[in-house]
């Protein structure tokens, strides 16, 4: 029996707000390619947008110049990782319900629209938001 390595698509964007849309557009294209319904495709877009926005807004680190968005296509699921080299953020220390909603609320949205969510923060490797969407019938 042979096994095939999952397809992997990597996108590196500058850690600036105007490039978050590029990651969203890529997410839509990949989700459509995989046969996700329109509603699921837009959910995935929303999740990737929130993860990238968090990386832009709530991470401050001199070495964090870009964001890596990695899409891994597995037979039963799409795994998306949004990785930056920043030091992460503490939702409890974000602003209240004024001009910026807490970064944690973006994670609430991601948790709702994706099937699995894991956030890891490491001073050495940075922050990784790992999201999974199951491919129904995949």
């Amino acid at each position, binding site marked *: 029996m042979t096994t095939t390595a999952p397809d992997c698509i990597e996108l590196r964007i500058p850690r600036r*707000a*105007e*490039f*978050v*849309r*590029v990651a*969203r557009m890529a997410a839509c294209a990949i989700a459509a390619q995989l046969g996700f319904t329109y509603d699921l495709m*837009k*959910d995935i*877009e*929303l999740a990737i*947008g*929130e993860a*990238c*926005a968090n990386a*832009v*807004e709530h991470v401050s680190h001199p070495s964090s110049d870009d964001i890596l968005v990695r899409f891994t296509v597995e037979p039963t699921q799409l795994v998306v990782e949004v990785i930056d080299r920043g030091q992460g953020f503490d939702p409890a220390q974000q602003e209240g*319900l*004024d*001009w*910026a*909603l807490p970064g944690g*609320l*973006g994670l*609430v*949205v991601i948790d*709702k*629209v994706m099937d699995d969510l894991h956030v890891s923060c490491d001073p050495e490797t940075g922050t990784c938001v790992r999201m999974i969407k199951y491919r129904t019938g995949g």
Partner: protein
Amino acid sequence: MSAQLKIVSRMEGADVAVLALAGEVDVANATQVREAGLKLISDGVKRLVIDLSETEYMDTSGLGTLVGLQKRIKESGGEILLAALQPRVMRPFEITGLTSVFKLYDDVGSAVKEARS
């Protein structure tokens, strides 16, 4: 590279205005919405209808901006009314529970009628 967003405002009476957001509201341009809303509030608008009939996408940056405008206009006794939310824009509102923060209307005309009453 910024997300495509067209912001148009119009007065519907002495202290009623409509702010139409056509396109995508996200982390890259939410501040433009904030500035446009604050300008209307500083000009004396008490009841501000946000026309979302052509808003195709909104993330929590956009939600936060609308919550901030609501907070600001309430300080002067006014309120924000949201009109014609499309399903994809309604989604983050429902997930975060922010639908309870605003009065929602199916269409702009109904919201304006309520705002002018």
